[in-house]
């Protein structure tokens, strides 16, 4: 298992970052090329000012009609994404990865805070799962794909948490953490998780169309 672990934290990590980056660039490039070919109006309407106006507005909790109407989802979504990003960048265990794999010295969160954030992410995943099961509007449109990506995103956090708590085989849990996190990276450009790379664009376009053509806010 140790050999596998070394492989996972070495070449495999590199490979997954490479696939994530190359895949994302390719997806974004294809999207832009397609828009150029078929939807010149998208180009004509795009505006930096309205794009950022919309993006910042939607990055403000409770700043839009949609966030106000769905308070629990607002808290869940913001908490989830914020903690996820903080952990990805600053989890104590990740400092070693940044240093070892990429030669970057990065500050880390204190252990207790990282643990808390991990629990928050796990709780958010549980909340999302609850919505998929129990909220009719969500349940009605949930597909296997949605469950698969939720599970995929859940795995790195639960395994990190279990490893930290030394529940189960720690090496196994750590390995699971690394492998599933790599799977998430690879999945981002090719699954529903691609909202991570596309939503700045969809938001920017909506903001531009509403601002420039419709002369009204898109929130």
């Amino acid at each position, binding site marked *: 298992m140790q050999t596998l672990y070394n492989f996972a934290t070495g070449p495999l990590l590199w490979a997954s970052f490479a696939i994530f980056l190359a895949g994302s660039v390719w997806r974004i490039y294809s999207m832009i090329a397609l828009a150029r070919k078929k939807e010149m109006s998208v180009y004509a309407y795009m505006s930096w000012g309205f794009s950022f106006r919309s993006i910042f507005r939607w990055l403000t909790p409770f700043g839009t009609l949609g966030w106000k*109407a769905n308070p629990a989802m607002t808290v869940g979504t913001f908490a989830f994404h914020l903690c996820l990003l903080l952990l990805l960048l600053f989890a104590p265990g990740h400092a070693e990865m940044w240093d070892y794999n990429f030669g970057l010295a990065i500050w880390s969160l204190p252990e207790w805070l990282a643990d808390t954030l991990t629990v928050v992410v796990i709780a958010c995943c549980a909340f999302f799962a609850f919505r998929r099961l129990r909220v009719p509007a*969500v*349940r009605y449109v949930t*597909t296997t794909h949605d469950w698969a990506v939720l599970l995929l995103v859940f795995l790195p956090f639960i395994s990190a948490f279990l490893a930290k708590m030394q529940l189960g085989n720690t090496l196994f849990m750590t390995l699971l953490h690394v492998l599933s996190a790599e799977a998430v990276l690879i999945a981002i450009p090719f699954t529903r998780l*691609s*909202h991570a790379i596309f939503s700045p664009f969809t938001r920017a376009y909506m903001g531009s169309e509403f601002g420039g053509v419709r002369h009204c806010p898109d929130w």
Partner: protein
Amino acid sequence: MGIADRRIEDGNLMQAVAKLTPEKIKAAYELVTKGEAGARLSTYYQSCMRCGMCAQACHFSISHPDDPSYTPVGKMDQTMWKLIRQKGEVTPDEVYGMAQIAYTECNMCKRCVHYCPVGIDTGFITSLVRRFCYRLGVVPTYILDTAHSHSAVMNQMWVKQDEWIDSLIWQEDEARGEFPNLRVPLEKEGAEILYSVIAPEPKFRTQLIYQAAAIMHEAGLDWTMPALPGWDNSDMCMFVGDSEMMGRLKRCHYEMAQRLKVKRIVMGECGHAFRSVYDTGNRWLGFKDWPVPVVHSVEFFWELLTTGKIKIPKKFDKPVTIHDPCNITRGYGLMDKLREVVHMLCDKVVEMSPNREHTICCCAGGGIINCGPPFKSVRVAGNKAKADQLAATGVEYLVAPCHNCHGGLEDIIGHYKLGMHTKFLGDLIYQLMEKTRAE
């Protein structure tokens, strides 16, 4: 739960579906999703999180709180998302349901945009589903007939050339009883203003032409109306998915204005016709700007009132509420001007909540009312949300500067027994203005 449980019989939907084959369906799917649609469709499909945050946006889902199949994402899931998931391999029966959803259960009002964090435009997706259905001929009978009328006579209501001119002269004649020197100037080259209306005006709302002529006359404007095709600014082709005809109609409208060398086009109180010039028809034609400037009535009346060309000696004294038509507010940002106009006309205004760009749709727009009697109950039941909102204002008069909104609102007012009366801005201005040139 879902569209299969609420099928409504419609002559053309049934006939057209009977002729479908898997090959035809697949070909239409390929044409729309691969041939015509581009990055927006594929990006929206992948990044819609199926989070259901849009559920509270739509008047259909608010009015049917226990049925998720009416939510914006629920409707996309039963139509375009399903088509993509199954690569266009759906049964004729399923196409029937998709047409019923796209034409009769989504007004393309875009209220859901304000609720979606990702920035998905359900109205746009609905328009693609309609395009797919249209390519298969699966379109509700009544609205298809109006689109055919556009194709045959370049107006929505089968109004013949002589009937159009006759209606204008008839209204001129009527109005001269009140304003002896009034003219409805036809085909006046180089006029400042070209006034264009939708075909239902000469067909059954001719008093609106009378009122417009009276307002133009009182304001002493240099205006004209066209006698030849292109006079109808409405566009049902945009709503059925006949993009080719939509483009021809827009061109015809502008070319008519250019032939007459007018300075600008003023449109009557219509929402969808305005949408077709600023949002859809122009895109199809690749026009970023208008070849001839187009002004909506709300802006035009605002000008007349603020410049004192029309004077209001005494305001309307009963409380009114304002309905913001989506095509001119969420669609074009005229909510402030609309308010200013209403406040210049009425003493007391009670606002609805939500209002302005968050307005709840009348449920007639997007071509739904044009799908005719078989689907009337769908839009009346689907807009209990608006009925509740209207009732909460407690007022008797409702100002709505859009023909479709009038139709839809009057139906819910009747059905839910709200005892309200709808008014166009033109009705109020005509009624309240100082008539210095009247007999």
